[in-house]
């Protein structure tokens, strides 16, 4: 049982903000991801929650109790680091049992809890091996087991998959999520990998330049990014963002393109400069489409293709196609957008505009 509350928590190094004042309430059993590029303040935030870093201002509450100035050990939070320091001279079993021995649990309790967690992670066969004999993925599993065996109120994980190769990362990503579903321990998870964030998080806190950009579900940050940063950062490739000018129901775009604004946006859009945003899957090739450009490159991704279309010489948009959609460079193409998937941003503030129905 753990709720975590940050109230105007901030961190300064000298006069520089590492984390600008932020509010965040994490409910019991929630999986919250702190996502952002390196240097955005996500790890500092996590370290403040754990108590490894002091705050420069604000309060941290665990289950409603103010722990802002409490020692990390008095916060009952398991920290899973990127590089697990497993004890090399101990077997996997001894490594997992270690935190319980340190807490002076009875040997029956220790045996019982190790057995449970080992079964959950399906690592029974590794128990008598030393870390040096284990693969990277298995070392991670043992480290996870060691964190789980304490039954902590919350998990704080700092890029635990960062050191793994792509294949293991996918497997471990699913495994950590599966464990969370089974155990429902409150989890705060730091990563710079947007795929990890949307695949795992109940909610995502997108950070950049020491500041929270958006807090929302994977669906929110993907479909309704709060600003240009989030639109670009989430998705692979990110949202297509094209500068244009709006007058009388039509957005004029580079390459002499004219895009009639969808109905829901007509009353909302201010006249003048505007940024049109759409995800690659929101666009589709149509010989009679309203928009046009020239193929810059098109590539195969296995289950789908990605078409890169040049609107003029500087604006390239990405369109997701089925497996057969490959065109030679220079081919003229026309395309359309799913009107429900169009988004608009204000260039000056970089903030998203909201549709009529969303506003209501």
């Amino acid at each position: 049982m753990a709720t975590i509350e940050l109230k105007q928590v901030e961190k300064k190094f000298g006069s520089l903000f590492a984390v600008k004042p932020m509010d965040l309430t994490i409910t019991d059993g929630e999986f919250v991801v702190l996502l952002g590029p390196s240097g955005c303040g996500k790890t500092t935030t996590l370290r403040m929650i754990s108590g490894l870093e002091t705050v420069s201002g604000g309060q941290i509450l665990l289950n409603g109790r103010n722990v802002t100035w409490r020692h990390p050990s008095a916060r009952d939070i398991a920290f899973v680091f990127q590089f697990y320091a497993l004890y090399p001279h101990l077997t996997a079993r001894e490594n997992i049992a270690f935190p319980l021995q340190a807490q002076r649990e009875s040997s029956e309790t220790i045996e019982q809890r190790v057995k449970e967690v080992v079964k959950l992670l399906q690592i029974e066969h590794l128990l008598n091996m030393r870390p040096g004999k284990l693969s990277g993925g298995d070392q991670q599993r043992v480290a996870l087991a060691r964190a789980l065996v304490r039954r902590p109120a919350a998990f704080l994980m700092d890029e635990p998959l960062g050191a793994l190769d792509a294949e293991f990362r996918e497997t471990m990503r699913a495994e950590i999520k599966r464990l969370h579903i089974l155990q429902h321990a409150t989890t705060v998870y730091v990563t710079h990998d947007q795929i990890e964030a949307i695949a795992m998080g109940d909610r995502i806190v997108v950070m950049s330049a020491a500041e929270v950009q958006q807090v929302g579900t994977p669906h929110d940050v993907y479909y309704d990014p709060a600003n240009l940063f989030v639109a670009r950062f989430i998705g692979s490739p990110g949202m297509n963002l094209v500068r244009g000018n709006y007058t009388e129901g039509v957005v004029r775009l580079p390459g002499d393109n004219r895009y009639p604004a969808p109905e829901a946006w007509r009353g909302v859009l201010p006249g003048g400069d505007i940024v049109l945003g759409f995800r690659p899957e929101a666009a589709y090739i149509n010989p009679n489409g309203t928009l046009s450009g020239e193929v810059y490159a098109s590539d195969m991704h296995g289950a789908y293709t990605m078409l890169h279309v040049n609107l003029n010489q500087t604006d390239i948009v990405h369109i997701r196609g089925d497996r057969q959609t490959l065109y030679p460079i220079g081919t003229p193409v026309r395309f359309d957008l799913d009107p429900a998937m169009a988004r608009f941003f204000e260039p000056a503030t970089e903030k998203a505009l909201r549709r009529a129905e969303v506003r209501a």
Partner: protein
Amino acid sequence: MSNVELRGLTKHFPGVTALNEVSFYISNGEFFVLLGPTGAGKTTTLRIIAGLEKQDAGSVIFDGQPMESATPADRDIAFVFQQYSLYPTMSVYDNLAFPLRSPLRRMPEAEIKTRVEAAAEILRIGHLLTRKTARLSGGEMQRVSIGRAIVRNPRVFLMDEPLSNLDAKLRESLRVELKHIQKTQDSTTLFVTHDQIEALTMADRIGILREGRIVQVGTPQDIYDRPATTFVAQLVGTPRINLFEANLEDGALYLKNSNLHLPASGVSMPASLLVGIRPEDVRPEAQGKFVGKLTLTEPLGVETILHIESGGQTLLSLVPGMTSVRVGDDVRFNLAQEKLHYFGLDRKRIHIQS
């Protein structure tokens, strides 16, 4: 530009055979990607082509001419590395001009200027020419390194994981640019990577290297749709292909430890085999023939990975968009029969004539 042929390239290092009879052919103007895990022999292959390493057997042939006696300089190749080896105190212009100012070339400054400016335009770094390279971002530095290769107009480009030090967003955009540049310049390129997405998206053809041997050579489509071995099937595609042991009984294929069974296709199949199913070919449908329990969903934005437990097996399914199915629910699904992959117990593809 040239064509490149490797014939029976073999290289031993103490205790290991780094390359074992490696042969493939790169046509003039082709983008050829050598894909394999760490230690497969990719970099050794590049180094031998460049003349930086000597093979124990076999030959490297440019335009029909064996290169055995040619020095690295004679071979006229341009190498782009993972680490951008630029001169930090020089401007971008001088870095690009550097290979042209070699005393061996005696190239007039006017021509150097023309070439540097042309390369800078192709790479969209024209606005950076006066800047010191130490003050560039990682992506800009890698563009300059590629530019330094382009100005020379070499016979062959050799690229050794040039994108792997960049962050995901930059990697994505440089991938597209590199491909565009290669196609519009028609430069013969051998690109080495361990990243299957780079291989699929950029290559005209891919050579799969494993433990010093070529396992398969083909277009991205060939490699993805007709992998020659289970190794290739698992190397390309994300999430990974579902692979199950199966038995043939009474004209039906029974997947081990599951309730899944399929009609066997017309061709002769061994009694025991492996069946591969790409996640996008596991299709949840209301009237699906099979049923399983949803144990996990992983939304990726544009699509969602479903983990479906059926019997003792977990199948991964890839569906478009974000799904509303809940963990614990039953899911009905079909398997795209015509898209299945069959492998023998020797892990080699069983060819099905259509």
